[in-house]
């Protein structure tokens, strides 16, 4: 029997950690992820989890701790946000290239300039090329479920994983949640048994050697393959999770897509607001749908393209700028995945929600409205757009 509770997303992650009981947590506090190590270290102090909690002096050291622990053969976790993630940058690449399955709760927060503590995806999107798996959540329930699935995914793929949630929106917002019994979680994640690790005395091992030019590229190609190979692993773990809980997960969720004429693709908590807009527009007879992307790394290029090509125009929503002058990161990858299709929808980018800017049901209404205008006139106009920003031209 599932355990009904009401929890914030941060509490849910800390409880998942207690149930998983990793060997090591190296962590340094940063808003809005601070509560995760806070709650979890209190569980350890109360004897509820047998985890070595290593309080370090920076996020660089937090990730170094996880790297060392993981190479030694331990299951290692951490949590961070924003500038903390940025400060881990160097190690993100080292951990991924050494194929160490570190699990990190990322509570998404804007990167500084101007300084801001609220939610957007600039932190983890900035780390999108570091070789980490990335999974995003809409609700507190998904945050909890994703964190538990992350452990077997990372360990089977031998890749580190970021389990992302929206800062303050899910991390501090309290909602109803179904928890899984401790023993079931323990059984689901199993014991971590790497084939090789530094503390295995009968097997001398060196991790992180110098890769000279005649070898470096072969290792990178192998790393690229590991992302490809992670696709079926993610689905296998999701199926196993569904058998345990009845809750279904995939690379993305399709909402009212079967007969939709226009659709929207977004990541994270905004999908909830978007679904409300879909429901209201459906009640008015408008055929609108929504795709909520859960897995951003590896990018589910082919299935996502297939889902998007059901409609005539799709709005791709980015909660992060990439200052490329050609749209946000999700837009570029999602739109590029459509290129090989014969019949492709128009694809429009909306940058939204930066630094905690609210996105409302009305905003989604406007976006769907834009999409209907585009298909009516058969003209996408400027495909790189903003929504929710004050603009003198539209005063």
């Amino acid at each position, binding site marked *: 029997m599932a355990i009904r509770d009401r929890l914030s997303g941060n509490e849910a992650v800390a409880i998942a950690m207690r149930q998983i009981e990793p060997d090591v947590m190296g962590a340094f506090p940063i808003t809005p992820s601070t509560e995760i190590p806070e709650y979890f270290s209190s569980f350890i102090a109360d004897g509820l989890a047998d985890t070595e909690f290593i309080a370090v002096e920076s996020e660089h050291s937090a990730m170094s701790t996880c790297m060392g622990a993981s190479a030694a053969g331990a299951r290692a976790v951490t949590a961070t946000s924003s500038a903390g993630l940025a400060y881990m940058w160097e190690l993100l690449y080292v951990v991924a290239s050494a194929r160490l399955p570190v699990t990190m709760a990322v509570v998404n927060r804007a990167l500084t300039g101007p300084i801001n503590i609220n939610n957007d995806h600039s932190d983890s999107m900035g780390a999108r090329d570091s070789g980490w798996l990335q999974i995003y959540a809409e609700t507190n329930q998904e945050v909890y479920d994703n964190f538990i699935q992350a452990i077997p995914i990372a360990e089977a793929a031998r890749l580190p994983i970021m389990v992302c949630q929206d800062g303050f929106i899910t991390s501090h917002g309290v909602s109803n949640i179904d928890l899984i019994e401790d023993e079931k979680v323990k059984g689901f994640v199993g014991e971590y048994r790497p084939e090789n690790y530094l503390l295995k005395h009968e097997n*001398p091992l060196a991790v992180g050697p110098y890769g000279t030019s005649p070898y470096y590229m072969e*290792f990178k190609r192998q790393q690229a393959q590991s992302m490809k190979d992670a696709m079926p692993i993610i689905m296998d773990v999701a199926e196993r999770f569904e058998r345990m809980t009845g809750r279904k997960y995939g690379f993305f969720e399709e909402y009212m897509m079967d007969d939709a004429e226009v659709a929207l693709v977004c990541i994270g908590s905004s999908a909830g607001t978007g679904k409300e807009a879909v429901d209201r527009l459906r009640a008015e007879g408008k055929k609108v749908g929504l795709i909520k992307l859960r897995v951003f790394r590896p990018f589910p290029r082919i299935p996502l393209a297939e889902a998007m090509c059901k409609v005539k125009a799709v709005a791709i929503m980015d909660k992060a700028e990439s200052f490329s002058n050609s749209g946000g990161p999700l837009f570029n990858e999602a739109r590029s995945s459509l290129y090989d299709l014969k019949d492709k929808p128009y694809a429009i980018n909306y940058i939204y929600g930066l630094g905690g800017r609210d996105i409302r049901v009305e905003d989604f209404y406007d976006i769907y409205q834009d999409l209907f205008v585009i298909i009516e006139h058969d003209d996408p106009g400027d495909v790189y757009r903003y929504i929710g920003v004050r603009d003198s031209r539209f005063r």
Partner: protein
Amino acid sequence: MKTKASELNEQSTWQEVTTGAEIYEPATSLLVNTGEWRTMRPVFLKDKCKQCMLCVPFCPDSSIPVKDGKREDFDLMHCKGCGICAKVCPFDAIDFVEEVK
């Protein structure tokens, strides 16, 4: 997959290299010729050597092998030609000459 570093070479494919560049055996640096960029070379003058053992711990590259309590000729596969051994030898038993190929 588990390949020994000693089995890898510049023809090894990405499928053959070890996962995450792990090295599964010790002392693989012995296999790599790191002495090739030396411009100066120490020359062991066996007749002058008193086996005082001063040069051995001074070598930063462990390139002076010792067997049965006696130093042997230089390991030129790893010697970098820094000249420290020639400097510290109290008995002029090490010449230091230009490397000619």
